């Protein structure tokens, strides 16, 4: 039962699954990871004398499931890239990755979504006022302040044309602010910052 090809197929299947799970990483990085893990498996196999199927299964089991190992690389890599990116999508994806690993990450992701959502809302209402000045506005009604279209006849418009600069300005500030905040908060994610003179683990005097 222990044909070499059969064992080879098992190794290949493991590496293939790992490659699939690593999806998001740059191809060169994926190549290096696979080569390193492949070397690990082969060397463990050689060290075990005659390789049987049980032995190979044990080696792969000790290594861990590909679906469990791959996210560890991704979390590190994606969060690392997100920390220095200006792209809201990348920043938010970094936060989402962290959100899957910790409660703090989840809170940050929700905060990021809220910030970007509000920023987009303001930007669109500023733009909307240019396109449809009579329908779009900032309205004060008995239900409170709302921005957008208004069906309540009792509502009165409060900002008028000012909605354009206020919406665009505030929206932009919030967009940049949210990005900066999420990036800043990602510094506290699993990844530690590059070592510096002031290390967070320095002993108490």
């Amino acid at each position, binding site marked *: 039962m222990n044909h070499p090809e059969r064992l080879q197929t098992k190794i290949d299947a493991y590496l293939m699954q790992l490659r699939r799970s690593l999806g998001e990483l740059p191809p060169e990085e994926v190549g290096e990871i696979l080569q390193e893990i492949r070397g690990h498996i082969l060397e463990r196999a050689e060290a075990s004398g005659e390789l049987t199927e049980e032995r190979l299964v044990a080696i792969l089991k*000790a290594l861990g499931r590909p679906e469990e190992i791959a996210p560890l690389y991704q979390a590190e890599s994606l969060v690392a890239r997100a920390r220095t990116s200006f792209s809201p999508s990348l920043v938010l994806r970094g936060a989402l990755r962290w959100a899957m690993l910790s409660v703090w990450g989840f809170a940050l992701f929700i905060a990021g979504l809220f910030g970007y959502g509000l920023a987009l809302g303001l930007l669109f209402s500023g733009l909307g006022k240019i396109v449809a000045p009579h329908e779009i506005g900032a309205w004060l009604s008995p239900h409170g302040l709302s921005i957008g279209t208004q069906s309540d006849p009792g509502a009165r418009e409060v900002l008028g044309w000012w909605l354009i600069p206020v919406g665009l300005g505030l929206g932009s500030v919030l967009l940049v602010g949210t990005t900066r905040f999420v990036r800043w908060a990602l510094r506290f994610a699993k990844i530690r910052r590059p070592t510096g003179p002031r290390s967070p683990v320095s002993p108490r005097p």
Partner: protein
Amino acid sequence: MAKNVGPDPAENWEKQVRKGWLELAILASLWEEQLYGLDILRRLEAHSDLVLAEGTIYPILSRLKRDGLIESKWVESEAGHPRKYYWLTAAGRRRAAVMARYASTFLTRIQALIAPLLWKEER
């Protein structure tokens, strides 16, 4: 080593402790010489029971490298496949030394704190 105190919570705690120490253990294993992944694992196995899933040390190595604490290069081996060797950078040596000092102080203090618990269990 540690007796299994109970079901999940204790097991989870042990996992967290292992995770926290693993990084220092990896840096420590590279203190004297350059090693490749499996070498590091063997060293950790010989001196500790820190590693649960062997595959988890590779992402940690990759992060340590990204953080500039270690460097790596591929070396052809007589085994027929190349091995990726790691060594400490100057920053890595500094960090490892700081971590080791902290860990040592930490252990001494916690040892004093938990000593009565051990004594009680022995009786």
